[in-house]
């Protein structure tokens, strides 16, 4: 699985971080999304998909390998 996050769309809600801390974070200076792990392991897939579905700005995309 490959994750991408678009800081141009991100509104800094932080929902992804609270869902999967191991994959997403927010930048200190502007609160926009920062990817911690672009290729999360299988056990995080479900949570990452939920983060993508929940993202209020549609800024997260998930692609299968």
């Amino acid at each position, binding site marked *: 699985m490959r994750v991408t996050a678009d800081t141009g769309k991100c509104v800094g809600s*932080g929902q992804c971080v609270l869902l999967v801390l191991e994959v997403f974070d927010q930048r200190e200076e502007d609160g926009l999304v920062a990817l911690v792990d672009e290729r999360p392991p299988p056990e995080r897939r479900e949570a990452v998909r*939920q983060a993508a579905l929940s993202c209020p700005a549609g800024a997260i995309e998930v692609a299968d390998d």
Partner: protein
Amino acid sequence: MTATVPATPRLPFDRPNALDIAPLYSVLRREEPLTRVTTPAGDPAWLVTAYAQARQIFADSRFGRSHPAPEQASRVSDAAVLGGPSGEYETEEREHGRMRKMLVPAFSAPRMRRLSDRIQELTDRCLDDMRAAREADPEAPVNLHDLLAFPLPVLVICELLGVPYADRDHFRTLSTRIGIIDSGGDAQEAMEEFKAYTARLAAAKREHPEADVISDMVAVQAQDPTFTDDDLSRLAAGLLFAGHETTSTRIDYGVLLLLGDPSRRDRFVADPDGQVQATVEEILRISAPGGLGLLRYAHEDVEVGGVTIARGDAVIISSNAANRDGTVFADPDEFDPDRKPNTHLAFGHGAHVCIGANLARTELRTVFPALFRRFPGLRLAVDPAEIEVRHNRLSGALDEVPVLW
């Protein structure tokens, strides 16, 4: 009895108790997910009850909080929050952008992580108070609302914003007054008092800045002449109000949900840390405080699901109803912490999504494990159906959650 839908039903709809929502919502969602209603103020509006339409409108920038001709706008209620249009039509986008840019870092997940030990400490203090109350009068139930659900979010938001906790009774009263939907002019008057209060705080921070959000706002204002004192005091009042009422209400409703069925409580008590994340999301989805919804005005004609919403029309989005849409959530009226995914709309969606969501989640994820670890035998002292809901409160706040253990 045949259930008939009145031509333009009037909000708020009667709800049977604190935990269930009005049955009319599911009828409307099935028959007319975008429907004409009459607001509590007596004006026409659209009500959105379906998930897809709610999410679509939240995400569509053609819907805003301002109105192109505010004097002609439908009003929802007398409340000073979500009662009618807010902001200027011409400048809404710019002002909203400035607000997010200024506040997003202050409520970001990294900041909340740094705050979490402090939230734990404050929670423990509230739990100590609950135990002391129980020991002081072993015959009487303890009001969890007064000793935990209300004070905890207030303590936290006071520290974040830089508001003296000693002023809590003052802004508690103001917060209640600004959210009364049938108050005549009192809610607006209360908002003016609230703004006068936060303006005084801001003036003090201007002299002696501290490490808090109101000081940050004052610093931004010093660089931006278009950010007026009125804007700042209104925003600070909004943060103080929204920063405690909403979370306090979700703690109350979460406790009612977890205690409403002993098997739910026992399941949670068995593994609070493992279950808290999903349990909090389910509490956010199914608890449905308040009988109205979030408000938008169409900034141009927009077609949604085959219905044309005309420029200027008011749209009330019921997240409570959308979160129980059976096409998205199986058995939507069942409390099911195993639900995956749980993409509820409790914080809204789109560019206006709740800025305090990380704070709320951090508090909720701290409070429930701490509460049930301390009092694993916690139970309600009354039937949940007897918990009184005030129908005229915007936030759906409760006054009493009597518990025993």
